[in-house]
């Protein structure tokens, strides 16, 4: 032990006190990780945004129902994953900014503007970031389905699909294969579709989450799927779906629906 004690920067090594150290320094860590996974897929005239409802810390499940997906406007839905306290505060602040916009301009903020707003708000905290991965889904002003994904400090891009969170590494490759048709060769004389129909997308979303629930301990309990339909888009694909609820506020534009499903609780 003398060799070790002699490396102490100050104080003489006391013969009887082996444990002499400097003042105990323990830094408070203002972050934690609350598990869960989110995902969004854009279609031609719709967008699907989903997340599980489990909130955990370490090996403990804190609650089986803590929503991670939030309706912002009738054409924008935001999914938030990472540090739950930051996530909730961030959604609160985005909603506040959208309300101010509504009061100033008497209309809802367009999706691409919300995306830029989110990047600005995230980057404003570049040196004490919101430890949160955001996925924004909805309908653009041209009526197309869109997904924007962000990193915690605001880098963002528009994509057709994105998974984030605890099971990102399980879900994203599945989506790459099933949506972008990566590593698949079309039959001779045919080509892969550029847009998938809504029923197919819903099936992929549910399969993604049941799969992630099987293989990741932080995913499970419940599933919330938001579907945003473009103005005038057919609701045929949503008819007969069990437990579907509409949460649209206005009645002549885009429409928002929620589908809730159970996931395994173990």
């Amino acid at each position, binding site marked *: 032990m003398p060799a070790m004690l002699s490396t102490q920067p100050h104080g003489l090594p006391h013969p009887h006190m082996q444990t002499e150290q400097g003042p105990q320094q*323990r830094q*408070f860590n203002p972050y934690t990780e609350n598990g869960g996974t989110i995902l969004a897929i854009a279609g031609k005239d719709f967008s699907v945004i989903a997340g599980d409802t489990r909130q955990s810390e370490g090996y403990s499940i*804190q609650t089986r*129902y803590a929503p991670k997906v939030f309706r912002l406007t009738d054409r924008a839905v935001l999914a938030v994953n990472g540090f739950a306290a930051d996530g909730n505060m961030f959604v609160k602040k985005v909603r506040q900014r959208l309300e101010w916009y509504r009061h100033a301009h008497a209309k809802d903020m367009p999706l691409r503007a919300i995306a830029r707003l989110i990047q600005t708000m995230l980057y404003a905290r570049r040196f004490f970031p919101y430890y949160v991965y955001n996925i924004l889904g909805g309908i653009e002003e041209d009526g197309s389905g869109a997904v924007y994904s962000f990193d915690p400090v605001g880098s963002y891009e528009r994509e057709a699909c994105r998974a984030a969170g605890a099971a990102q590494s399980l879900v994203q490759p599945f989506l790459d294969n099933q949506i972008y048709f990566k590593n698949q060769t079309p039959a001779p004389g045919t080509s892969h579709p550029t847009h998938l129909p809504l029923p197919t997308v819903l099936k992929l979303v549910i399969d993604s989450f049941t799969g992630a629930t099987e293989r990741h301990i932080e995913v499970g309990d419940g599933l919330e799927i938001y579907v945003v339909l473009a103005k005038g888009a057919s609701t045929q694909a949503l008819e007969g779906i069990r437990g579907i609820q509409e949460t649209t506020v206005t009645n002549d534009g885009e429409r928002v629906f929620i589908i809730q499903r159970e996931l395994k609780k173990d």
Partner: protein
Amino acid sequence: MDHFPTNWGRPRNDAFDAYGTYPIAQHPRNAVDVFADGVQRTQQPIVTGTSVLAIKYKDGIMMAADNLASYGSLARFKDVQRLHPVGDYTVIGAGGDMSDFQYIQQMLEELVTEEFASQDGHTLGPVEIHEYMSHVMYARRSKINPLWNSLVIGGFKNGKSFLSYVDLLGTTYTASTIATGYGSMIAQPLLRKAVEGNETTLTEEEALKIIESSMRVLFYRDARSINKFQVATITEKGATISESRHLETSWSFAEGIRGYGSQTQ
């Protein structure tokens, strides 16, 4: 020196504001502390309380916490109340640093008094107390100056029961069973097994049985606990916090344990 002109205050203009009513009077803000760098922050809890348990049942919420405040492994204060009523509809239970908890009690007392004094027909329920505490805790963690507690907030107002959790990071959630600290590992599974799905049918007697047996298991296994605890119920009739009660425990089985401990055979 404060370099932001908006913080300098507005010179009074007697021509149109003789009584200095603009800007609207605010609570006085503490001046900027020039010794801020030398200020001590809670970097670790000192005198600590252990788990808080709470469940939903038919009539409302039942919450329990023992009466011990530890100083490290020393059982320092053995008659501390860790359940605290806030207003008429809410009880808040705390684990973690007890001096921070006493500060929170003061803060809430002030809040409730101010709300009462306004006489506007509104009273603070558990939902409001939760929202308030979550913002306080998150704001403090964001200043890297946390209040080192895990709080359980239970209440009953307007026919609705409410149970939630807030901690030093500002993390929040609601659930039908909540256990903090050691209890989240030992008691939470027992509570879930007994309560999940039965929130609307459990009677007060059954709820008390569940809480009591969980507190017993905790006393057997948690070295920072004591067999003296209080139970709070929050129902339509209001919030009541029981006198301290003692647990019957039996340690005769300990003699039969072989393989570790002091005995050699």
